[in-house]
């Protein structure tokens, strides 16, 4: 009896191996909004703020990517500095005295949001709406100031619109589409496609100034580019500029209903890596697959099969 060999459930998966803990880093003390804070050496101002429960808005920052420091919505005031500092990438230094809200900070944040909202279609960027409200951003005032300068002062509606990045959406394959009307040029997709995750380098920033944009080489269609359709760029895009074709089609048809969607975590059925999938279900059908940023295995990244290969589940009979 004792010698009998019985089937046993495999042990619960152990956690992924971790790097051994490094020696306790010396800590840095500073003052944020009048509060004394301590943070490990190398921490950014944003890290310190989050530890202290202080909210700092971010747009181009993502925990899983190298900070690119481009949107400037996270700026804070550092006492003694000539200009504001980006919280997401500036390291906390000993003795820094930081204000995360001040008239100066608020003005810059407001202007950044107004500049974006006056030039980019933010209709699928819900995280920006409360931010705009918080900073009382009024993106229409540029057109109004420009327009009123050119037409008679009495005309109510601005007669002139200011330059924007509005352009036709690029739908050139069955898996995902790119609507650069909605691009805030946060570089997240470039980083996800490049050295921060995918190492495919299918897209990069091109052009310069107001004409800067994300592009494949010579603006070729995705099937002609190096893209492997992992969709990791979609996962990090904060504005919906990059979107799975499936979701895009449903939205175009008016059938995208986030409020009617349920979300379930599961494991990808395809290969032995066993990536965590978050399956978004609407009307009994899978409409989207993502992966949690916090997942130790994926950090939010997947491959083409895990992200897009769900249609077979929807085939019922």
């Amino acid at each position, binding site marked *: 009896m004792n010698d009998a060999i019985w089937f046993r459930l495999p042990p619960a998966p152990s956690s992924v191996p971790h790097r051994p803990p490094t020696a306790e880093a010396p800590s840095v003390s500073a003052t944020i909004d009048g509060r004394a804070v301590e943070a490990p050496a190398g921490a950014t101002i944003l890290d310190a703020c989050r530890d202290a429960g202080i909210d700092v808005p971010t747009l181009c920052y993502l925990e899983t990517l190298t900070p690119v420091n481009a949107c400037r919505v996270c700026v804070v005031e550092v006492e003694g500095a000539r200009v504001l500092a980006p919280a997401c990438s500036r390291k906390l230094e000993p003795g820094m005295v930081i204000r995360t809200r001040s008239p100066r900070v608020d003005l810059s944040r407001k202007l950044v949001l107004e500049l974006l909202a006056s030039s980019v279609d933010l209709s699928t960027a819900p995280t920006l709406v409360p931010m705009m409200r918080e900073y009382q951003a009024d993106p229409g005032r540029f057109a109004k100031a420009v327009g009123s300068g050119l037409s008679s002062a009495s005309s109510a509606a601005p007669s002139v619109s200011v330059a924007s990045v509005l352009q036709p959406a690029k739908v050139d394959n069955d898996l995902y589409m790119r609507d650069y009307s909605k691009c805030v040029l946060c570089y997240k997709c470039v980083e996800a496609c490049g050295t921060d995750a995918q190492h495919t380098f299918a897209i990069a920033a*091109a052009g310069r100034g107001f004409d800067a944009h994300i592009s494949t080489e010579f603006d070729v269609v995705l099937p002609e580019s190096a893209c492997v359709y992992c969709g990791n760029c979609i996962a990090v895009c904060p504005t919906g500029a990059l979107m799975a074709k499936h979701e895009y089609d449903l939205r175009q048809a008016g059938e995208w209903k986030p409020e009617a969607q349920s979300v379930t975590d599961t494991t990808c059925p395809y290969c032995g890596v066993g990536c965590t999938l978050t399956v978004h279900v609407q009307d009994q059908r899978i409409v989207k697959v993502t992966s949690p940023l916090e997942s130790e295995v994926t950090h939010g990244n997947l491959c083409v099969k895990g992200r897009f290969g769900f249609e077979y589940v929807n085939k019922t009979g």
Partner: protein
Amino acid sequence: MDLHITGGEPTEDERAAVDALLGPPESGWEGGARNIAQDGRTAAGGHSVTGERHLLLPAFHAVQDRVGSVSRGAMNYICRRLSVPPAEAWGVLTFYHLLATAPRPAAVAHVCDDIACRLHGAEQLCRDLEARLGPPLTGGSPAAAHDTHGGGARAGSSASASMGWQRSPCLGQCDAGSAALITRAGAMPERFVLAPAADASAIVEALAGATAPPASRTVGAIGTPRLLARAGKVNPASLDSYREYGGYRALARAIEIGAEGVIAEVTASKLLGRGGAAFPTGRKWDAVRRQPATPHYVVCNADESEPGTFKDRVLMEQDPFAVVEAMTICGLATGAAQGFIYIRGEYPLAEARIGSAIAEAREAGLLGADIMGSGQTFDVEIRRGGGAYICGEETALFNSIEGKRGEPRSKPPFPAEVGVFGKPTVANNVETLVNVLDIVLEGGEAWARTGTTASTGTRLFCLSGHIARPGLYEVPFGATLREMIELAGGVPGGRGVKAVLLGGAAGGFVGPEHLDLSLTFEGARAAGATLGSGVIMVYDETADLGDSLHRIAEFFRHESCGQCVPCRVGTQRQLELLPALSAPSAPSASSAPSASSAASAASVFGELSVAMKDASICGLGQTASGAIESALNLGLIERPVKGGE
């Protein structure tokens, strides 16, 4: 790296141009002839493959020089050779406005329509050229169609035409009154500057192959010139001639007193950087010298693209050995064995003269291993810019050298710690470096007796605009603006001064009431102005400042790297707001801006300007609104009465 390359092979010419720079390809993997037996299934990897990316911009230049533009096939071949993903190469290619991405005529005139030349009829010149050659070539990347200063592709003049033209920002020839850079692609490519570009016919003739005799230009000084002591006298092509004028004595002295001695003298001289930021040079060198990380690098910033500035060009063209000698001293003092001099692409003569000076110095043992028996090694490589003002910002310049887009990095970390190739780097302006020769020879303290206590030495000022003898003038710090204007012969026709632009487009205007301003760092600061790169552009009482302001706003919109929101969109909004800022003094006719609407535009502009200064990543965005703001403050654009809407 696993490159995915589609669509297009290089032509023979394109391949030859790249191979002339990089040598023949080693294997089929790099785009050479496929030879399975020889290439086998070996995989190249690591640094040997990815470590050549810094040759990307030189390779683009090679192809552009040969065929006039960079095709997809040519870019693909370069990508194979350097192991760069095509999307990234495209990002770099579209960053530089001297590079074209679609076929265009072999001969192209880049005609300056910037602020100084506008005061001398640049718009008329462009209209005349348009009548002769058709519309200008315009922006290359798809989104840049409305960008009239773009570098690019979509040919107004068709590719089959033999010549074309495009507008250009300041070419650093502002004392000539008009200027055009002529580029002719081919097996023997030509690049030269026509300044003055007297009229459309002269430009067309130059495009067709005529060469104009170089015009003589004004170089002047108060007192004994130091930086310009040799300019115009020494033979720029001869090391012997340079030695006759005292050349390479400073290097000998530097070797004698050693690195620490040099840094002590430079520190004692209180030399401040002449590139715009006025940082103490001695401190910078000392910081780099102390860095444990190796190797260290020296970068000479010769990207001089600030509208109105041409001082570094004159130094490089007239006294190239001095620049090379000063870089060598800097290398020995900071423990660097490699230097780069990054020369803007619009300066072919400076590039050629520095190039021959480097070659001659190398031959004479003044560059390379064991310089003058010191046991130390130092060499210099030239990098040609691609037409991007932002690459003058030091960290953007590093990225450009590394073969990346010229986007500034965030600081800290500062270049002394993390510079080009991630290594400790000392970056200095050309003029700053040339000062070091006399400092080493005379000793820092003695040298510092010239000038004022806080602004030591002499300064080069670039005088242009409405002035009798525009040119480059060297004066001890402390001269007043009025003295400078008088030195250059005053305003022609006895007219009065309406305003002076100090420091270039990134500087600001001062009014006639500031003519007694002492031209020192501290004097300028006290007056809320900046010396910047030494620009003094004079506007007489008849000048149309609105036109200049519009060109400045256009300049920043065109030159912003596009990385950060306050500058990328802010420079666009600034350009749009500008017309609404000026209000007529009388109540408005219906088509003119009214006082109250101008007031609302001014308040929007005011907030925008603060945010651009506070939240932009680099100096470009931080200074882009300065000139307009100063004009508003001086009442040069009539500031509307605060009235609300």
